[in-house]
């Protein structure tokens, strides 16, 4: 959907905010969205959106990727199953894959992936922030408010913040 709206000119995104910063982003292909439902075409759309938002030169793909991507370990109920040590061991594959990209941020367009990759980033001390795609789209449109930055790193807390007017009572 995002890709279609950008192509139609309805979503006016720009990667200018990242020109000087040059922050590198990688993206997790959610198994549920890509391999298990819409396949590689939606993975291409996902890359189209990410590149439009962070800048083509600032996107680094994981390997393997798209339909061949590794599951992060958050799905199928694993996050709630209680086997924490095993879940993190599963996630080490994903962690190594992300670290190999050298990216500053990992985009996770799935709730399960987001929670799991967030956890393994902290657990294995990769310390890369894990963000929702909607956060970056809103940021790239200059409409992301100060309180919508829960998952952004300190380097992006103050970038292109929408100025909030005084609350009127």
């Amino acid at each position, binding site marked *: *959907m*995002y890709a279609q*709206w950008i192509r139609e000119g*309805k*979503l*006016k995104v720009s990667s200018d905010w990242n020109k000087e910063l040059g922050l590198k982003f990688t993206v997790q292909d959610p*198994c549920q969205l890509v*391999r*298990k439902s819409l396949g590689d075409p939606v993975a291409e759309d996902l890359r189209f959106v990410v590149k439009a938002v962070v800048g083509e030169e600032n996107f680094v793909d994981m390997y393997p990727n798209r*339909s*061949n*991507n*590794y*599951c992060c*370990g*958050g*799905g*199928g*109920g*694993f996050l*709630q*199953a*209680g*086997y924490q040590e*095993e*879940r993190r*061991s*599963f*996630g*080490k*594959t*994903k962690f190594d894959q992300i670290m190999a990209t050298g990216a500053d941020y990992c985009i996770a*367009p*799935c*709730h399960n992936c987001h929670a799991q990759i967030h956890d393994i980033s902290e657990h294995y001390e990769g310390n890369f922030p894990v963000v*929702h*795609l*909607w*956060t970056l*789209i*809103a940021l790239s*449109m200059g*409409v*992301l*408010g100060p*309180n*919508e930055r*829960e998952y952004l790193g300190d380097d992006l807390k103050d970038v292109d913040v*929408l*100025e*909030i*007017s*005084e*609350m*009127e009572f």
Partner: protein
Amino acid sequence: MAEPVKLDEQQSVFKKKAMELIPQGGNLDLCFTCGTCASGCPATGLHDMDPRKFLRMVLLGMDEEVQKTPWVWMCTMCQRCIKACPMSVDIPQLVYQARATWPRETRPTGILKSCDISANTPTWSAMGANQEDYQFVVEDVAEEVRSTHPGFEELQAPIDKEGAVFCLNQNSREPVTEPDEMIPLWKILHTVGADWTYPSSAWAGENYCMFLADDDAWRRMCEDVVKAVDGLGCKYWLNTE
């Protein structure tokens, strides 16, 4: 050292039952034993198990071991093994069927509780968010955006808007623990002029009953989602990021 498996003593009840339930019998008998599944599976090695080994144990009729290994809760059913398999053997469905053989109360507590909580609220929220609280949070946050975010004075986050094109689901995490995180998507939908609504019931995007392998409960959940979407006359059901 482990005892050899005596094939003539094995009943393979689990295998027969699983093959009846999985479409095309899951191609279980077509396995080459090549190991491509195991070599690309992040769950390989956990609890001394991997997809190939699991399948071989099923085919050898080692029903007791197959139905006891906690590994079935460590496979995320991500289907990478099917994608890699030259014969498209459906190991994830086999894992699902093995989960279903566990007595319900012995299945992982976290998943069990989340399923039970969601099945007991019309919203299907695994965090137990009810319709009133949800409506309050959504309206409260939307009003704050309208009154303080320049350019979004007309922003709407409708609930039960009849005839909307898109019916949007919502993971419980945002409304319950971090409501401001709902705003970016609303702004995107507002900017493109999308005609959308949340349903007041069955809006929760999580499906723990499926993870629990509780067929009856997750069928009821899906039926409630369909009822909500059709009831509003929406054209599309949008599953969020």
